[in-house]
């Protein structure tokens, strides 16, 4: 039990990193990773939203959609629930914790249609996770996103200072740098299966 959870957590942080090996949430990864503070804020906001979204969508799937035999409505229901949830979270933060809203809330609208959030909720259902397992997997994916954002913001600040040939300036060099970071993460392949061996 505990072992399964550890495996899920480690593999979603390192091996199956959503950004670098499954390419979900590329937009915020490339868009908001220019500065370390922005990258950290975005990463934490995404982690929080993933946890809340998984906590809400899992019961909806198993207690509402499945008994009614409406599994095909999954996509529509999940995206609406996540969008409404994010908007609500922003309003609540604005009202009750203006300082937290200033730090994290500004990133929330950007997450509404983030494919990593929808992706993790749907993947939890596809993988037949229990409630606890899907929460751990959401936490792992969120932390993996945060890790990738923070590492990459360091790379980005170096890129900004270097002299790059014109055709590669901007997006191409960023993608190629991300490719090398992804290559580094590939090195984690196989580590989780063998950790308990």
């Amino acid at each position, binding site marked *: 039990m505990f072992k399964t959870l550890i495996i899920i957590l480690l593999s979603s942080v390192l091996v199956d990193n959503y950004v670098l*090996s499954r390419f979900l949430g*590329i937009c915020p990864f490339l*868009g908001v990773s220019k500065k370390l503070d922005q990258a950290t804020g975005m990463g934490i906001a995404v982690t929080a939203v993933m946890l809340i979204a998984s906590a809400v969508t899992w019961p909806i799937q198993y207690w509402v959609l499945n008994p009614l035999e409406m599994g*095909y409505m999954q996509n529509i229901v999940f995206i609406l629930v996540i969008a409404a949830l994010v908007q609500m979270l922003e309003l609540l933060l604005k009202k009750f914790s203006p300082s937290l809203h200033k730090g994290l809330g500004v990133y929330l609208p950007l997450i509404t249609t983030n*494919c990593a959030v929808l992706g993790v909720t749907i993947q939890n259902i596809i993988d037949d996770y229990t409630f606890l397992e899907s929460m751990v997997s959401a936490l792992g994916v969120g932390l993996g996103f945060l890790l990738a954002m923070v590492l990459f913001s360091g790379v980005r600040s170096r890129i900004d200072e270097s002299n790059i040939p014109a055709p590669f300036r901007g997006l191409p060099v960023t993608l190629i740098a991300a*490719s090398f970071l992804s290559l580094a993460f590939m090195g984690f392949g196989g580590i989780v299966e063998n950790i308990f061996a």
Partner: protein
Amino acid sequence: MKKGSNLDVLTRGVLKENPALVLILGTCPTLATTKTVDGAFGMGIAAMLVLICSNVFISLLRNIIPDTMRIPCYIVIIAGFVTIVKLLVQAYMPDLYTTLGVYLDLITVNCIILGRAEMFAGKNPVVKSALDGVGMGIGFTIALTMMAVIREVLGNATFAGTPIPFLQNYKISFLSQAPGGLLVYGLLIALVYIVTKGKAPLKKSFSCAGCPNAAHCHTACTEKGDEA
């Protein structure tokens, strides 16, 4: 060719404003589904079907949908068509369904579709929106297939699953894995810049133009992001 004519709208998406290589929209599926030619082509066609249907539908409803509620409305319409396409693929092409997996669901949040709804279909008549959908869809499919051909032929020495004999000993296997996707995509965008001599309306950084969230997002776009 007259700007704004039907033919212009149709061809624009294929080359001049290719969604994947020039507008840089739909990055996630571009990177994730181009490991194999089959998967990339299937993804392109599936996205094209959703794009045409949602463009037509949104264009029909453009005078009814209130401006403040447009993004949620668009998302529901798109999610509906994604579900239809997903069920069709599941029924008739089970192999493709397994290959694409969760990415088929994620067409819902593909920026190309929401972006075209926001940038084009919400403001233009039905016929033009349909043509825009066809053009953008073809452009997206071509870009994806092109990337997949590079990655599969060089990385796995196969073409759409058929082995290429003389390349068997020269596989660059990392191209068909995750890092290869980012690398090939970066190189292709640089190539577009060289071919067009920098004249393409290419996004040089990941800006907010075209991002469907831009309207109600005050993070990267307004304050500190774009000028940096």
